[in-house]
């Protein structure tokens, strides 16, 4: 019984999403635009609390950036256009998901290279032991 209760509590905790810092007065009246703003906001890093997205951060700068995202959407900018607008000011660092380009090849391909190297190492190690 106790165990079941615990499981329910943890299941509920897991389902709960992180509280957003987006204030009601920031939100756009158009739900479709607001949904796009949320998606963009969650992909942008807050420059002040650097492991939070601008949607999660209570920092003043995050608030300002959320407003800019919404302003850009209101004048008809695309999602990619809005991201480019912010990246032009703060660089790729502001993107929580780093782009795939020569500077980040090591980041994206490094784990794969390590996996291949380790697999080869293990393969040759065991083949040698058998003989």
């Amino acid at each position: 019984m106790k165990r079941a209760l615990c499981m329910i509590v943890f299941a509920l905790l897991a389902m709960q999403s992180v509280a957003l810092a987006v204030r009601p007065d920031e939100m756009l009246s158009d739900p479709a635009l607001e949904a796009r703003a949320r998606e963009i906001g969650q992909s942008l890093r807050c420059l002040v609390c650097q492991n939070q997205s601008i949607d999660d951060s209570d920092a003043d700068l995050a608030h300002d950036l959320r407003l800019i995202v919404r302003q850009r959407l209101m004048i008809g900018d695309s999602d990619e256009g809005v991201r480019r607008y912010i990246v032009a000011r703060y660089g790729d660092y502001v993107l929580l998901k780093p782009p795939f380009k020569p500077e980040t090849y090591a980041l994206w391909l490094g784990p794969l290279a390590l996996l291949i190297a380790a697999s080869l190492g293990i393969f040759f190690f065991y083949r040698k032991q058998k003989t």
Partner: protein
Amino acid sequence: MMRRVLFMLPIVIFTALVAFCAWRLILIARGDTPDLIPSVITDHPAPAFDLPSLLADQTGLKTSDLKGHVTLINFFASWCVPCRAEHPLLIGLKGKGAVLAGMAYKTKPDEAKAWLTEMGDPYDVIATDYDGRTAIDFGVYGVPETYLIDKKGIIRFKQTGPLTSEVIRDRLLPMIGELNQ
């Protein structure tokens, strides 16, 4: 022979790792902390802006005002503690070959004026960036931040966080001298 090389490999990797960590730690001690975001605006023209003046007897500041002389733009705020530490150094930069432009970031004009009365006013011109919009166009993510701009209006150097006497001596003053030639 092959076995011996393999045997040494972990030690070599470990030594390389320690060397890398030591190198990063030295850089961090010198101020290159991981939260320092590399500037993307350096070597690009200053963004378009046109801000009102803080003081009634001065004109404001706009992008075209940056042409023709070396400018040092300093974003500061009356509520910013590191700005207090930096301020005496700015006063020391007066008349050293750059027009000193202050940007009162998210600071009420009265509070900015009171702060300058208390701390001294090093600036040749002071603009108010009350909503912080121009600061975002510059890529400011915390005050103080300082930008060195050449005669053509191109940003040549950015200091994130307060200026230090080392940065002024080793980087800023030599660059100002160079840009004035």
